[in-house]
């Protein structure tokens, strides 16, 4: 037997587990003539002897494991706790994705959520409806303070916007085949 073959079987030899007495006999024969392999086997056996100096720790007399009933009782709690945690995390994730807004102010509690709602871009214009409301507000606020000319001008603008709105509405209804009466009123 060569040194490399001894090395392959050295653990079986040291632990005497090969189940092949012939192989062990060959190794023993090799060891008689090979100091290097002999030294290797000696070191392994010595390491094993050293390891046995660390004695077994006495097992606690009272045992360690709680009763099976305690284990059985413990698991439902674990299970429900785990499911609860998973549900809470899923809910939080959903609310985050849905751009949830929760507000508490003088108007009370408000909650809004929109799944995949588009973020409203910052606008630099007013809609006609908004402009109309602003003009009405301005007319109300400044009615007494403003000059007759300004008041008339604002009133004119308001009329123009109102007319535009109605025209837009009529166009929308006509294009969608909506119902308008003969007077063109809605």
């Amino acid at each position: 037997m060569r040194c490399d073959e001894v090395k392959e079987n050295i653990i079986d030899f040291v632990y005497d587990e090969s189940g092949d007495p012939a192989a062990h006999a060959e190794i023993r024969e090799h060891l008689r003539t090979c100091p290097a392999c002999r030294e290797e086997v000696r070191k392994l056996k010595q390491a094993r002897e050293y390891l046995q100096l660390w004695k077994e720790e006495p097992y606690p007399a009272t045992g360690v494991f709680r009763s099976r009933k305690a284990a059985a009782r413990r698991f439902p709690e674990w299970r429900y706790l785990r499911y609860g945690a998973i549900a809470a995390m899923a809910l939080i994730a959903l609310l985050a994705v849905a751009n949830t807004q929760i507000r508490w102010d003088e108007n009370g509690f408000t909650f809004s959520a929109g799944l995949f709602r588009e973020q409203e871009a910052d606008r630099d214009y007013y809609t006609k409806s908004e402009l109309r409301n602003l003009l009405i507000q301005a007319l109300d606020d400044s009615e007494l303070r403003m000059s007759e000319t300004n008041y008339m001008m604002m009133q004119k603008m308001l009329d123009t916007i109102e007319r535009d709105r109605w025209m837009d509405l009529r166009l929308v209804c006509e294009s969608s085949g909506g119902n308008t009466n003969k007077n063109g009123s809605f």
Partner: protein
Amino acid sequence: MAFIKAETDEAVRRFLNGEEESFDLIVRLWERKVYSLAWRMLGNKEDAQDVVQETFLSVFKSLRRLRDPASFPSWLYRIALNHCRARQKSRAFEFARKRPASVPQANDEAAGLSETAFVPSGAAALENADIIRKALAGLGEDHRTAVILKEYLGLSLEELAQVMECPLSTAKSRLYQGLREIHRNLERLGIKSAAP
């Protein structure tokens, strides 16, 4: 060992057939071995006791999914080893934490392997055990696991391969390397002069 195996197989089969009471027998048969494994791996009683507790809770929970009752021992050891690993990670465990004051301090990297020769006085069991623990702590996890399972749990080489989920040749190689490292570490620690 054969007696334990037969009893274990029977208890596992009964448990799988719905007799939960048989779990008590399984615990009685195996808790000392699990404790021994955990204690050798972790090096302290409290952690070892916690690992026993966690291991059998895991076993109770998942034993019904075990397909082959005959594979119970290696399955059990794997669970215990997983709990040992988890505990080591969570606690940034120091293996030789409770060493006697007379033993020189050393860093974890070298696993307590000071170059300064340390010759234990006589054959004081406590000191020797502590040196062995330090020498083991210097091994990589696979080598240490192989050595502990083989030397202290008495597994056969084939059982070792099953627990470590590797080919037999790999298990032998890990054990071989582990023993060589142990010998080298112990020589550096100076145990040579007190060699048996």
